[in-house]
């Protein structure tokens, strides 16, 4: 168990291609940190730098209390779970799990104890004699986790470990990894492109784009207070709705105006908007699908944010429905109760919960509130 510190870390490849820029993060001991972002954002490269599989071009990496920039992967006291499991095909499961311990010349009885304990935790005792090719995807993933557990490392690194599993198994393994973290109380750094994994598993989430950290925070912080349009759009499913318009002040009140829309903003936000200097300037309004309502009580409560829209597509998920709408040339999606009687082609009146809206500076894409 250890604290991991990345101090102004850079990764440059030849030809001045910078894939990780000024990555600065302090991961606490026993923390579960999830790095999330689209393909090519530098999250896997960062993880590989922590593992020692990629050289750090600039900056400092500290695991525990020693700088490990030039330390060989085997001496960093880390374990890694790979996306494609990376089990050794010529060894049986027992040998796969014992491999790292044998290399460290650990006593045979101790190896046996650790392998069997880990196998029991992961419910793979009956698979120990099999070869990886005789295992299903989920079983292989458990073995990969087991191989990491037996090492009892200071830090676990996981590189999209659930991407190759089917949807049902992914949900199951997600919970198992979270349980494992509670049980082992070890620092885990987890990389994924799946925002649901990030939201459900991490103590803290690091959102990345183009090699730069966009925001670091707890799942709730990131969901409710995104730093910019990218974070707001990346976290949450379906994604946040964005409507481009501008802010106009009228008789001491502020209005968000877009073609077909004139929404009065809450009084309590005036100060923040004035301070940000965005009054009279183009801004982007963001609202999550669950904050768009069709219930009569909402339509009465928020008469200033009513929108008449045309329904394009309805996705019924059983417990709820996603309604894809078109209003005043803008497309957006609303999450409504499954019992709502709505069909493609019909007109639908909705109200935006103005207490939950976000305003972004359209030019800088940064959050105003």
């Amino acid at each position, binding site marked *: 168990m250890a604290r991991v510190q990345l101090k102004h870390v850079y990764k440059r490849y030849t030809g001045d291609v910078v894939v990780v820029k000024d990555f600065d993060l302090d991961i606490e001991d026993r923390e579960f940190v999830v790095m999330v972002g689209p393909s090519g954002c530098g999250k896997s490269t960062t993880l590989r730098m922590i*593992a*020692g*599989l990629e050289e750090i071009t600039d900056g400092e990496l500290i695991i525990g209390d020693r700088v490990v920039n030039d330390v*060989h*992967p*085997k001496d*960093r006291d*880390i*374990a*890694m779970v*790979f*996306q*494609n499991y*990376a089990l*050794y*095909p*010529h060894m049986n499961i027992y040998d796969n799990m014992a*491999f*790292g311990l044998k*290399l*460290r010349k650990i006593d045979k009885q101790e190896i046996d104890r650790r392998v069997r304990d880990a196998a029991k935790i992961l419910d793979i005792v009956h698979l120990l004699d099999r070869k990886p090719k005789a295992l299903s995807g989920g079983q292989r993933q458990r073995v990969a986790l087991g*191989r990491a557990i037996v*090492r009892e490392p200071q830090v676990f690194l996981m590189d999209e470990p659930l991407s190759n599993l089917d949807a049902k198994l992914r949900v199951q393994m997600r919970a198992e990894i979270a349980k494992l973290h509670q049980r082992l109380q070890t620092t885990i750094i987890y990389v994924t492109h799946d925002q649901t994994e990030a939201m459900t598993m991490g103590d803290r989430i690091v959102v990345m784009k183009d090699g730069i950290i966009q925001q670091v925070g707890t799942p709730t912080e990131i969901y409710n207070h995104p730093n910019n349009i990218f974070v707001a759009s990346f976290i949450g499913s379906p994604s946040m709705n964005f409507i481009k318009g501008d802010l106009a002040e009228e008789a001491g009140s502020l209005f968000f105006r877009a073609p077909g829309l004139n929404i009065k903003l809450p009084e309590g936000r005036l100060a923040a908007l004035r301070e940000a200097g965005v009054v009279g300037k183009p801004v982007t309004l963001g609202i999550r699908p669950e904050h768009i309502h069709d219930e009569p009580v909402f339509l009465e409560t928020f008469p200033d944010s009513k929108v008449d829209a045309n329904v394009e597509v309805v996705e019924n998920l059983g417990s709820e429905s996603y309604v894809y709408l078109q209003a005043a040339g803008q497309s957006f999606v609303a999450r409504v109760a499954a019992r709502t009687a709505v069909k493609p082609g019909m007109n639908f009146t909705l109200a935006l919960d103005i207490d939950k809206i976000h305003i972004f500076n359209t030019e800088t894409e940064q959050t105003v509130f």
Partner: protein
Amino acid sequence: MNTLTAKRARNLTLNVVTWLFVLVNLFPILWMVWTSIHSNEEILGGVRAMTLDHLQWGNYLQLWQTINYFGYFKNSLLICGATTILSTAFAVMAGYALARFKFPGSNLFGMSVVSTQMIPGILFLVPIYLLFWQIDKNIGLPMINTYWGMILIYTAFYTPMSIWIMRSFFVSVPRDLEESALIDGCTRFQAFRKVILPLSVPGIIATAVYVFLTAWDELMFAWVMTTTSDVQTIPVGIRLYVGQYQNRFDLLMAAAAVSTLPVLLTFFLTQKYFIRGMTAGAVKG
């Protein structure tokens, strides 16, 4: 014609064409075996004289007595065996380096290795002969008509293609396995030895079979570079049955049939590795 009949007719046609193709390719081998069990007189008498009445199985005994066939066999085994070990060892190391490491000129080196195969081997015959002669003259190290001379030539000739086969094989082994081994506690060499090498056995066998079979059949360099029967290989040895005054086609064919046996045996025992090795990296695994 309904679909099922059309399918059957197509399968039948494909089978006939395949069998014709197999027969055309097998004919020289069948002819060699058929000729090898007849007397020289019958062979010279033409196809009609070669009947089933007087099969000469004794040719297979006589071939060992007429010339020092065992000696040629031993020389072939020694030279081809050593070449196989050396070429494969070099190919494994160079192939791994080319598959895994980017270094200045790595692409150029890789392409140069393949492009050597575009130059006909015969172009090297005279220069190598002169080089060997100069080495003997200036250093006093005999190269012509020696085992090591032949082993050196064959190793130099068959290593480039072997490197390419091994490189293709290593490329198809996921990099994650090595990285996982590094994190598990291996040094880079340990990761290669304990993880990559055991997984590359099919590729190594394919390479070794390729080198052995190609060296076993080689005649041109063996004919020019060796002059005495204590170094000469089978392809050179069996030519002795064709003389200035008498051609012993019966013994020649029996000797050729015997020399084909190790080749056939090696291929049949290792064909699954051979095909896998040759096609490594061709498709996504």
